[in-house]
């Protein structure tokens, strides 16, 4: 009998939603300023109510995103201390197996092998996405807050920090947007093996078939644990 396996708890799914909704709003209200002559972003800017409203919306969305990220750090810390002993046990850290999986996957892609790598709870693709958010949040929130209060920060930091923040905010935004709409969307929507969408972000569960296909090692471990507890 096939059963569903919990992948993301309600809290985790909400954390993802409170990350990507502000992300979309931040892109829509920020890119019109990055590309001030683009017709496409002009339409977006008018829809957002003009630059003066867009600036306020941008800062509000940024605050929500930063709070969500802050919540995740506390959540992670709580889980590390209270529930599980280590990040490795949560399968979040890159390990030797990820290196092995990358080589196996390359062989598979190049028709040198017919076997897809067996992934555990998080594949190297998912680990990359997870830690990329940390890098992105560090750069975007850091530079964004400096640009929000330039006069205040210039009292404690050299003037060039404001200029660096301006470049970092603009360029890292581009990298983040490209990574999301090309890489993340391919892996969860446009990949023909996934198309039209991986529903796990709101359902929170994977079917046994999906588990066998995407996370066979985790499924094996769960089944072994179930056997042992019988």
């Amino acid at each position, binding site marked *: 009998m096939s059963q569903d396996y919990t992948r993301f708890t309600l809290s985790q799914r909400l954390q993802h939603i409170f990350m990507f909704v502000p992300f979309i709003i931040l892109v829509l209200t920020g890119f019109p300023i990055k590309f*001030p002559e683009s017709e496409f972003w002009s339409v977006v800017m008018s829809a957002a109510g003009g630059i003066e409203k867009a600036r306020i919306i941008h800062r509000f969305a940024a605050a929500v995103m930063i709070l969500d990220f802050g919540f995740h750090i506390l959540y992670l810390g709580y889980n590390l201390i209270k529930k599980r002993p280590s990040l490795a046990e949560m399968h979040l850290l890159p390990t030797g197996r990820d290196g092995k999986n990358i080589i196996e996957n*390359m062989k598979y*892609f190049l*028709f040198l092998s017919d076997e897809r790598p067996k992934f555990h709870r998080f594949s190297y693709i998912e680990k990359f996405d997870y830690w990329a958010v940390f890098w992105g949040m560090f750069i975007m929130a850091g530079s964004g807050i400096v640009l929000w209060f330039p006069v205040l920060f210039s*009292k404690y930091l050299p*003037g060039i920090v*404001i*200029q660096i923040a301006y470049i970092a905010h603009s360029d890292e935004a581009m*990298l983040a947007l490209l990574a999301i709409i090309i890489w993340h969307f391919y892996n969860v929507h446009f*990949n023909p093996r996934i198309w039209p969408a991986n529903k796990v972000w709101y359902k929170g569960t994977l079917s046994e078939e999906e588990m066998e296909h995407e996370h066979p090692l985790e499924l094996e471990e769960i089944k072994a644990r179930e056997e042992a507890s019988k």
Partner: protein
Amino acid sequence: MPATIYRHSILVLLLVMLTALSAPAQQADAENCNLCHSLAMMGIATPSEGLRSFEVTANAYSHSTHRNVICRDCHTDINVFPHPVEVAKVECSKACHITKPFALTGYSHTEQTDAHAISAHGFNSEYSVEKNQAKPDCKYCHSNTFRNVVNDEALQENSQHCVRCHEGEGLAGVILHVSSHSGHRTAEASINVVELCSSCHADQGHMKQFDVNLTQVGGYERHFHGKALKRGLNEVANCMDCHRNHLNLSAEDPNSSIHPNNIQQTCSANSYCHSGVSSTFAASAIHSEPTTQNNPILFYVEWGFIILTAATMALLFAHIFLDFGRWVGDIWMRRKEK
């Protein structure tokens, strides 16, 4: 209460302008110069200059800033009728027969022409005649056109820039400045100021003859002020906010608004802009394009991000491409087997 002064000044200004609009504008031609100068074919043809029209379109003049100034107030060397073809060029520093609002003194543009004369745009004895002529004179920026303040939202938004420098001059001072600037080309909108300055400063061929950094306009457009202004955020600084309108001086001149000693005060703009800004923030060259010489840190940060983005996207694209290739290959092989 700068905002209140601004609002009051606009109200009073509207009354002044409405009165001005209803007054007959024909006074300017009290001496009937348009007897001849209204003729469409009035002009001369010379081998050197080609056709030159001397027609004064009555309607255009009667709606211009100078509609109440009679012709000979500026063309002072005309004393006979008919006058000779060659007359002296008009000097804007000449006092005219109108009085300043709320003052009894005669009006002239000497304050502006004096500032212009010693500015980077003024006459330089070390330059050739052609090089001096390539600099903007009064008329290059001020086209003496009339603008209807009552219906001009762009101008009203732009008025907030005036008080940044002219605060403390009182209500009469604000009205004087807003009313005098209202007729100038530079009073249209902030974005027009940038376009006006760019008409020379973004022209490589034109600027080549002067020892002026050519990246200034490009640098402004890359910077937040330039980008936000293009998107309609009128409160950001345009060229004149930092470089002043007539006293445009090199950063090396101690009297310059952008000299290291004064830049902090300029950025703060009477507390209208970056109030309490630090000297290091003010000193960061916001318009030059970073190079390995003038700003190596920024140069490498910028290239660092370009390389990081290109490398990351190249790897991610390759992964996607190979993944998709395997899926297509599998379908193709399954078909072949059948």
